[in-house]
């Protein structure tokens, strides 16, 4: 299922909207487009969608390309790429619609040409600034 339709409502998240996407999927698409405004949307695809009562899970892929002069994740990119993730949507009578985002940022980093080949600092507790300042005396 794919499309680039508009934002879904915030009441229910299960019904299909005018774009052919479910309201939940349309909400995810709209959040991505607004939340990642440095990207120009190309295509939004729903790969699977599950519902269990008030909880809905949507696995999606979002194809986008950086807008001219803007960077994504701090990197100047020029070609379109695909972002993948799963979004949980919870609908409650009191707190409305809430979302929880699990996005494969590591894959996005790889596609941006970045990786984790950096030098870490030692793990565990950090040095104490007061102890270090004492070394200056």
């Amino acid at each position, binding site marked *: 299922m794919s499309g680039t339709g508009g934002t879904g409502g915030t009441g229910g998240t299960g019904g299909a909207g005018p774009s052919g996407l479910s309201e939940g999927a349309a909400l995810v698409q709209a959040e991505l487009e607004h939340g990642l405004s440095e990207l120009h949307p190309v295509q939004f695809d729903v790969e699977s969608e599950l519902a269990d009562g008030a909880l809905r899970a949507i696995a999606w892929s979002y194809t986008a390309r950086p807008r001219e002069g803007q960077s994504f994740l701090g990197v100047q990119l020029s070609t379109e790429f695909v972002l993948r993730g799963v979004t949980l949507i919870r609908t409650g009578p009191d707190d409305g619609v809430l979302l929880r985002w699990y996005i494969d940022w590591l894959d996005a980093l790889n596609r941006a040409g970045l990786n*984790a080949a950096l*030098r870490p600092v030692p793990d565990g507790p950090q*040095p104490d*600034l007061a102890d270090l300042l004492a070394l200056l005396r």
Partner: protein
Amino acid sequence: MPGMPYNLERGPYLAMLEDLINRDPVRCLESLRDPAKPVTALLREMRVSINGGPYKDTAELAEHIDRDWFGIRPDAHDGPPISRYWSYWDGDAQGIIRETVVRSIEIALGIDHDADVSGPTPHRWHVSILTACTVRWFEGWVSWRRVGPEVAGGHVVILLLTPTHGKPAEPTLLRPTPTTKGRPGPPYAINPARAEGDQGLWAIGAVFERREDPVPVSAEWVAPGSFPRPHLGPTYFGEGGIVVVAPPESQGGVLPDGRPYAGAAS
């Protein structure tokens, strides 16, 4: 803490290599120009004791470089060497260092690439070597300049840029730290007033680079309109003021009067 606790270093090993080159650049050049010889042949041929670090002499140091930097496996007789020290990079580190040092010595001697060195050379400039870890791939850089009005005076600087080897860097220039314990050896100094001796290496930075980890973006339920932006890693905050430090030689620093030798160089 083993490894390279500062981001840039010379230390006992590069100081040793530097001295070998500066003592007999022609001999080093001839060795490096011979494709049948490993780069480390010059360390083995001019065996010198090293009173510092885990390798007792240049032959042991050569084994470390062959194994870890160059990926040379004595038991493997076919296929290219695979550098196993570097994360997310495979390539001919030995070839890059060979070409870098060959070019550097040729510049130091004032001769063209591959030119004959059996006769006198126009000059004999001093060669210095430094290495810095973390760029994406292995590169050697050479910088040079004549010093003074006479062509005989000059200096060549080699900077070896390496990919990460994954060993942590201390978030402070000061010593000791919880993970680099013990008294720092010479020529360690904090905010030195004078450049002692004929050579040196100082680092200038914040007293402490405090690490602040981002909140995981998937950790919370958020309302529409609150899309969680990702962080690519911790942010470091330089705190405590600026400090000038002469690192100990054992951690990459430079002794003001050079390395004391415990063995013959040739």
